[in-house]
């Protein structure tokens, strides 16, 4: 009977397609690196690569949190605005503490704690509105996106909040400093990604996040507290935003209404380029990392060449994003 072998063959070829799908973002990343090297040899210099990766860290870290949110079947549009608001609050807190004669270490520590508390709290508010309030995540976070953006504009009186120069000098190395040439933001990004991968793939919480997004009813019938899982995911996203802000503030030492503008879309794009399904239930942390780097590389490569009209930048970005996702979707279109 040819049946079983045929079935087995079908299953294994389906698996091979799945594998290809998982490698998709890394193939796209490799292709982009080759492209970069061709466009300008400067691209491959350690200095340039370190710059790009350091810049990627903020949206990358936020995208790790976003991977959890999207895996539960949700979405968070408020992260960019929250980053701006949290940056503003951090600057205000540290500026207020500096004249108190506290040692700079303590000032930065307290500022960081304030940011973490605020970010996690804001994430939990999103989560509560979604789970208890029974409002669509898209609507909740669209609302909080506007609220956070307004609050930072208000806090900055429409202008820019600037960090006290004295404390800035002390805090600056958090962004610019390095260990063996690898800057701190890159190290933090790597650690966050590794922790994210462990949590998602190896812990009960991660399994529950995936199950919730794959099928909420099945999760409920498996004695999983779906609401608590979602709430925790939004809290986690808040934590990631807080961490990104901690790394971001020392870069320019300022926050304004334009801080973090569009980060939410970049983070979501990184997650989706990485192969995580928009509808939830399937997560790829390392894909997200690749996705975030891909997005930053596109910018970098376009800046390193004068061959393409600057008016077309966004078109090139759009094309590369769509191609990167297309590579993975080929297997899905077939029934």
């Amino acid at each position, binding site marked *: 009977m040819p049946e079983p072998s045929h079935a087995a063959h079908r299953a294994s070829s389906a698996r091979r397609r799945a594998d290809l799908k998982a490698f998709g973002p890394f193939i796209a990343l490799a292709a982009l690196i080759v492209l970069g090297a061709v466009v300008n040899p400067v691209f491959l210099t350690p200095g340039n690569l370190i710059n790009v990766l350091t810049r990627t860290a903020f949206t990358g870290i936020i995208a790790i949190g976003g991977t959890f949110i999207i895996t539960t079947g949700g979405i968070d549009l408020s992260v960019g605005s929250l980053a701006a608001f949290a940056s503003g609050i951090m600057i205000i807190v540290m500026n207020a503490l500096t004249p108190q004669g506290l040692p700079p270490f303590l000032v930065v520590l307290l500022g960081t704690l304030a940011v973490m508390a605020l970010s996690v709290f804001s994430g939990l508010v999103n989560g509560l509105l979604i789970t208890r309030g029974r409002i669509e995540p898209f609507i909740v976070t669209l609302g909080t996106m506007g609220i956070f953006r307004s609050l930072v504009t208000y806090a900055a009186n429409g202008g820019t909040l600037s960090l006290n120069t004295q404390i800035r000098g002390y805090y600056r190395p958090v962004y610019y400093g390095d260990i063996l040439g690898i800057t701190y933001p890159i190290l933090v990004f790597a650690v966050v990604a590794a922790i994210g991968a462990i949590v998602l793939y190896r812990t009960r919480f991660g399994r529950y996040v995936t199950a919730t997004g794959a099928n909420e009813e099945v999760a409920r019938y498996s004695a999983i507290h779906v609401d608590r899982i979602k709430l925790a995911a939004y809290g986690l996203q808040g934590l990631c935003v807080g961490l990104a802000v901690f790394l971001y503030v020392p870069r320019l030492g300022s926050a304004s209404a334009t801080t973090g503008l569009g980060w939410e879309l970049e983070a979501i794009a990184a997650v989706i380029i990485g192969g995580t399904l928009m509808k939830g239930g399937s997560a790829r942390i390392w894909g997200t990392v690749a996705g975030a780097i891909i997005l930053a590389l596109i*910018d970098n490569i376009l800046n390193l060449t*004068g061959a393409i009209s600057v008016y077309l*930048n966004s078109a090139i970005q759009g094309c590369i994003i769509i191609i990167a996702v297309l590579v993975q979707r080929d297997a899905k279109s077939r029934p």
Partner: protein
Amino acid sequence: MKFTIGLAALAVGMMIAASPAGAADKKVLGVSIPAATHGWAGGLNWHAQQAKIELEKKYPDLTIALVTAGDATRQANDLEDLVQVRKIDALVILPFESAPLTEPVRQVKNAGKWVTIVDRGLTDPSIQDLYVAGNNPQMGTNSADFMVKKLGGKGNIVILRGIPTVIDNQRFDAFMDVVKKTDIKVLDSKYANWNRDDGFKVMQDFLARFPKIDAVWAQDDDITLGVIEAVKQAGRDKDMWILGGAGMKEMIKRVMDKDTLVPADVLYPPKMIADAMELTAKHLMEGAKLEKQYIIDATLVTPDNAKQYYYPDSSF
């Protein structure tokens, strides 16, 4: 507030005719400006607020209705409200975009209101009673002149542009017209969206790409802030200098303090909204005769005159 700064033309052009006839009436002045979504617009809002307080104190019979909008469509809606609900007598508007707001402003004009246009001209200039604006081409020219002089007519520069708009094109084209005639080489120009983070990113990549840069034209002080950080990080702050624009207080301070990285700044002051409001109020309350248009010079700020343009209390 001081209303003399950068407005020599204004003082001359203003002929104050005493006409107390209208002074007894209650008047409403409508002011419509974009919301504070970036630094310059933030300064705009701050100056508008300040002017509102000052003017309402000065003219007890004057009410100023100040509204901000996030996009052109909302601004057009605001105009209807100002006319219908707030019953304004005159309008001061900084249009989000020229074309989409031309017709809505025409409606205001047809309703018999005084119209003052600020910064961005409408596609039909016949609508406006008064036009107050900074000088974008002049900003480009003045910036270029300073660069050519300081570089001695040769060297490598990079340009960080703003957001693709008419304003940006006017500045850029005027700048290039001057620079083209010299031996200065423009290595490349990229958009940095009048944003600090984008300024930082683009400059990092320029620094990686070009080993020798003598000067940077950032044309906006928000971008300049990002550029400064990138240059410092690369340790090349001794090799080049940056020319920004707008008149942000931090930049004016640096110029005042003779910072070698930022030797000068070119004004494009958000304070123009306050000037426009004051002129319109003067006309409304005192019947002052006004010129048809006031163009505010894109003055070059150097350590010599920086003190005049420094507003430590402004948000910009």
